[in-house]
């Protein structure tokens, strides 16, 4: 059962992924939080758990020296990309920064290929030449994986430009951080996107810190949903720890962009549990703050509780999902550990066409 649910959640094939099935009654929900049906909760649980376990494994492999350089984990933020991805249709593009493993898994990219790129092996999605921060998949409409803070915002706007140009009905989702939101090119992009009514959704993942700098120490306007106001771009603040709220907001934003009304900004209020990258002394926040977020707002725990209480799944059924996810992650790690390094001749390939 767990396996079936997982499949339904992948690659946009499940009912929950069709934008028009509109099963989450965002507007007619009794409580003010939009509701999920059982399939949607199961699908979200699978997707988020995969990211969580994958990232934990990455951290472990980094500790063993199998992954080098920078390695930015997505733990804590899983609901953002999973909820947004549930609101997309085939052909919608995704682009993000260097904290990209979760986005790639949510886009349906092969966990083995992602992990093997982290270890710099030939079976990696960039043949081992890109690393943790730089992976791409034309097939899954994932455009990277960028190391320069803010660069993805103009690039994502370019993806939207291409959709507009081709009139193909697709929307681009551009993810960036609270820190990245202060880069100048973000506002140059906002202006063009609004001016030309581009189908662009900007997802600001406000995890409260840019490296060691809290939002309030770097931003004069800390309400990121307002960052497009002077260009007339609508925005909302969203509980980024509740995958249902993310999905509902994602649907509104994507619908707005897809129907020719121009760009939309979603500020996802989220939290990263781990350090900025692996070597982060984390002196800029208290342990209590981190512990409180994990205990009270964990995005996966929220869904888990619903699965047990509302959908009456048994602990054993949840365990089965967990083992299946672990198996995928272990297989990926196994592959990434034993796959050979790239052939030395690869040094000189892929520079020009």
């Amino acid at each position, binding site marked *: 059962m767990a396996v079936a649910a997982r499949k339904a959640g992948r690659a946009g094939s499940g009912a929950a992924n069709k934008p028009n099935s509109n099963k989450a009654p965002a507007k007619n929900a009794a409580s003010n939080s939009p509701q999920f049906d059982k399939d949607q909760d199961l699908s979200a649980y699978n997707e988020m758990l995969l990211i969580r376990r994958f990232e934990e494994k990455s951290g472990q492999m980094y500790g*063993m020296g199998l992954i*080098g350089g920078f390695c930015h984990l997505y733990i804590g933020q899983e609901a953002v990309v999973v909820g947004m991805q549930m609101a997309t249709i085939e052909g919608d593009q995704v682009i993000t920064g260097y904290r990209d493993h979760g986005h790639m898994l949510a886009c349906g990219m092969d966990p083995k290929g992602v992990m093997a790129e982290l270890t710099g092996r030939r079976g990696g999605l960039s043949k081992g030449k890109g690393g943790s921060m730089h992976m791409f998949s034309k097939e899954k409409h994932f455009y990277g994986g960028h190391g320069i803070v803010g660069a993805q915002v103009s690039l994502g706007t370019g993806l939207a430009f291409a959709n507009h140009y081709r009139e193909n009905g697709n929307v681009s989702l551009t993810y960036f951080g609270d820190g990245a939101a202060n880069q100048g090119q973000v506002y140059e992009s906002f202006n063009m996107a609004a001016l030309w009514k581009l189908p662009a959704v900007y997802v600001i993942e406000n995890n409260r810190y840019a490296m060691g700098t809290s939002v309030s120490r770097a931003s004069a306007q800390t309400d990121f949903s307002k960052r497009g106001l002077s260009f007339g771009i609508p925005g909302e603040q969203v509980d980024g720890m509740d995958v249902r709220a993310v999905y509902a907001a994602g649907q509104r934003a994507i619908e707005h962009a897809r129907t020719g009304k121009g760009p939309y900004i979603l500020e996802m209020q989220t939290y990263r549990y781990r350090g900025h990258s*692996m*070597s982060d002394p984390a002196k800029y926040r208290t342990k209590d703050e981190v512990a409180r977020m994990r205990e009270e707002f964990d995005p996966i725990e929220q869904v888990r509780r619903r699965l047990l209480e509302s959908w009456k799944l048994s602990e054993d059924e949840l365990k089965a999902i967990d083992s299946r996810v672990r198996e995928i992650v272990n297989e990926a790690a196994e592959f990434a550990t034993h796959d050979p390094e790239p052939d030395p001749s690869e040094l000189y390939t892929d520079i020009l066409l």
Partner: protein
Amino acid sequence: MAIDILMPALSPTMEQGKLAKWLKKEGDKVKPGDVLAEIETDKATMEVEAIDEGVLAKILVSDGTDNVAVNTPIAVLAGEGEDMSTAASSAKAPAAPAPEAQPAPTPDMEREGMADRPSAGARTDSDRPFAEPAAPSIIQTRSSHDAMAEIPEGTEMVSMTVREALRDAMAEEMRRDENVFVMGEEVAEYQGAYKVTQGLLQEFGARRVVDTPITEHGFAGVGVGAAFTGLRPIVEFMTFNFAMQAIDHIINSAAKTLYMSGGQLGAPVVFRGPNGAAARVGAQHSHDYSAWYSNVPGLKVIAPYSASDAKGLLKSAIRDPNPIIFLENEILYGQSFPVPKLDDFTVPIGKARIHREGKDVTIVSFSIGMTYALKAAQELEKEGIQAEVIDLRTIRPMDTDTIVASVMKTGRCVTVEEGFPQSGIGAEIAARIMEHAFDYLDAPVIRVTGKDVPMPYAANLEKLALPNVGEVVQAVKAVCYR
């Protein structure tokens, strides 16, 4: 199945750490994400989190143990339902702590994984020296800069890392001149992304040590604007890769204004930060921009190798009335060198230093390139080749006299840099030698450079992409016809 919990590495260069404190004890149940222990490195205290669920069956390395090597088993976790005592007894004996690390007097390339990178085989045709030197040129007398005279005889030397030397240079200049201030990302409260500005906030306060948002183009412009009024900003780029966001202000605003204003308005600003490849951080984080800045009139470009040059040159740079690009190197930050203990030690901008004298061949390099050059010189010595190694220290203005004087003596030259070959620093040096010492050359100049490819991530490819000691040795032998 019992699982060994290993000592993790929390940074690319960490080899060992102290197991400061266990937060769980034997017999405790743990689940993924639980904090098991705290470890300490020279940079920070960090937490070890559990990855798996189970019971902490045995602690193998106790609280307070120093020098625990990365990947040593530190505890054993028993799986669900597993007998704890069997799990504990299946554990290997605790590993002996790693021997105390010896601080290396010069960069230890082996440790950095840089020794003897295999040649990529791309060099074979260019190894062949060409025809005999021909047309005569005008020969002038050249004299090299005497770097020994920079430090008075009998001065006490203290060992210091490049990181500390840079920090001290900034602190001394900030004490000396109220107009000097530092700005950049994470320079204040975080104490610097690479800890170069450590302690400056505490001494000088938030007015003079300014944390900026991630807005390189904006704050570079703010720095230049402030410099127009006579303030002396030190603008830190977290790395020079990110200075590409700010390149317009560096070139169009900082470098050109003095000229455009007919000499009225200069910009005494220092742009500094790590440049070039670190380790395994991929193409967008590993670019050596020396040649880019070297190309622009109106800038001075400095790229020191040793801690004492880093200190003396940064102090001179802060006092200089021009815009300065000060290129540091992340791998050199932690290396220790002797630094003169003087109240006010400066090194002149624009003067190279003969790091090692020799009569057979001149090797010219700068920054981390010096590590290859010096190691190669040691190896060549064993084969009876005396290499003279010149550390450029300043790239623009380039100390042509020191290079040319050396080449007049040796007749042969090899340049070493991590940057790309085309239009690189080596190309510039070769052209100057050809212009000024053509008749003295016994062989064409050979450049050893980074390969002509973006920096790959994979460990094996990264090694191939960077220059190595073997390539320098091979190039020297080629110009010596050996």
